[in-house]
């Protein structure tokens, strides 16, 4: 801003009141006041940590430029690719289940005409969302332990006699997917339900008059109109899923390390930071995960539509 510019603004402030309209400079000053707290937080806990992680990822312990050495170290780590494949497998199972089941359940609940029933179902589906994080994992430890489980009979039917048999590595992606689905699906069902309510009644009515049955209406009208929300859900869940941490961390603890404590990428980053005191390598992994998350969110921000208000 030039000096002239600044003077002009000061003058505008001085004459502002008489003009009746909000003068630009005064407006500006107040805006900065209102936004300042949030701007500071964005800087401190959004931008700066990301930039600091970039700095650490490209330097060594002494602060010298390291090029891609940290990245090649973590990617070359024998634990890295197993962790990637664990997370990938979990994501595939979870996303397929989420997209298919949430869509079907939302359409079914939406089709129920008895209002109290539809309302109660939504509440039952949604309530597990209150048990996020460690609490839901703890609950599922009980459910998966055949000696305590409410569905112990079912587990034995499937051939599991003990907790250790249930949590063999091959089962873990499915188990984590079930836990994530149990906690998170209800919220999405409620969101999809809201989106279904936004489909105009005339369209549905017209389809019915033309002889479409419920399945055809769901397939030809409701599903295409939900597509935006479904892809939103898939992208958000994909981004969140790459962060897998609390489930394997608690399971590792509960199983006396039958489940390794470097099962997921975030756990590996945690190991680097806290067991090996290698902040540079930890920053490199965090940065890789952050880039994935940023790329996914950028898809949404740039493709727009959902978030544009102007």
């Amino acid at each position: 801003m030039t000096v002239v510019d600044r003077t002009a603004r000061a003058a505008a402030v001085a004459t502002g009141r008489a003009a009746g309209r909000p003068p630009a400079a005064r407006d500006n000053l107040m805006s900065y006041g209102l936004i300042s707290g949030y701007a500071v937080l964005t800087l401190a806990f959004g931008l700066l940590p990301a930039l600091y992680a970039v700095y650490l990822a490209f330097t060594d312990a002494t602060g010298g430029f390291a090029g891609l050495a940290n990245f090649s170290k973590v990617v070359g780590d024998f634990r890295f690719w197993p962790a990637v494949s664990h997370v990938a497998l979990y994501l595939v199972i979870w996303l397929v289940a989420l997209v298919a089941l949430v869509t079907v359940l939302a359409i079914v609940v939406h089709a129920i005409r008895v209002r109290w029933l539809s309302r109660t179902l939504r509440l039952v589906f949604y309530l597990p969302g209150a048990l996020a994080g460690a609490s839901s994992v703890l609950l599922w430890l009980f459910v998966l332990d055949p000696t305590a489980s409410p569905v112990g009979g079912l587990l034995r039917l499937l051939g599991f006699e003990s907790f250790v048999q249930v949590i063999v590595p091959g089962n873990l992606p499915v188990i984590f997917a079930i836990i994530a689905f149990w906690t998170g699906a209800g919220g999405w069902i409620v969101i999809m339900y809201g989106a279904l309510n936004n489909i105009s009644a005339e369209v549905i009515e017209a389809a019915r008059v033309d002889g479409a049955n419920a399945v055809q209406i769901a397939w030809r009208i409701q599903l295409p109109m939900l597509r935006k929300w479904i892809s939103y859900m898939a992208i958000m869940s994909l981004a969140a899923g790459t962060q897998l941490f609390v489930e394997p961390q608690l399971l590792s603890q509960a199983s006396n390390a039958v489940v390794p404590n470097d099962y997921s990428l975030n756990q590996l980053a945690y190991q680097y930071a806290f067991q090996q005191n290698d902040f540079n390598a930890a920053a490199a992994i965090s940065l890789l995960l952050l880039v994935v998350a940023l790329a996914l969110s950028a898809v949404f921000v740039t493709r727009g539509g959902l978030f544009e208000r102007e």
Partner: protein
Amino acid sequence: MTSVPTGSAAAHRPGVSGWSGRAVVTVLVAVFVLFFAVPIVWLLLATTKSARDLSVGHPFAAGSAGELSTNWSQLFGFQDGAVTTWMTNSAVYAVGALVVTLVVSIPAGYALALTRFRLRRLLLVLTLIVMLIPNTALVLPIFLELNAVGLIGSPLSVILPMSFFPFGVYLTYIYFSTSIPRDLLAAARIDGCREIQVFTRIALPLAAPIVALVAFFGFVQNWNNFFLPFVMLPSSDGYPVQVGLTSLLASTPAFNPSSAGGQSVQLPTLALATVVSVLPVLIVFLVSQRFLVAGMTAGGTKE
């Protein structure tokens, strides 16, 4: 924010007709009701049983109030009342961060929606981006940053990062840009309101619904946050209850055989800990269920 018509559409919904169609739908719904509800019901019942009842009794038989109180005293006696400390910590962190979030986000959302200033566009885009990335993605970078300035272990290392809540700013931004008639603000200016008074006297009193919504999401997210406090707080005295649960888990012989000893935790006590750890959130959920279950489209916009 958009509101969703829930009642009027009911008559036009595609109903499921035909005997087989109904049967399939009924079975599907029943299976998922059981899937979602059984673990919670079982958990509540488990808190009223003794360890023996839990493993040999019927899973859905209720225990007794006496056992509940035994479990209760075992839980709150754990490590000389550690659970009370953790619950207090959780409350301090969640409420403290929420207060900062509200004080900062509501004016920010107003400024972004109804005023013009430099960098506004940039801040808006940053808000959307950070809102869409999972909040765990920045935890280790924030740890590294706060470690560099020596804040690790302080309550502020949890409260400040949690209070940065772009989703809350986004909700407020949407609310102020769609639900407040600009004529109303213009009228206030003509009546001689200064700009700041337009915010404090006109916009703020109209913001009650959005304050409630941001408070709901903020509180629930703060209370359930695990990774951030897990990384930031090295000592048990500072744990929130979500992290404290790991200590309880480590002392439960059923899951960790090496922990048998004086301070060991029985399964029903661990079940009670799980219930206690989510009780505040569960209460908030039940109290706000009217607006939540009606169709939570607040995160997006109407077609």
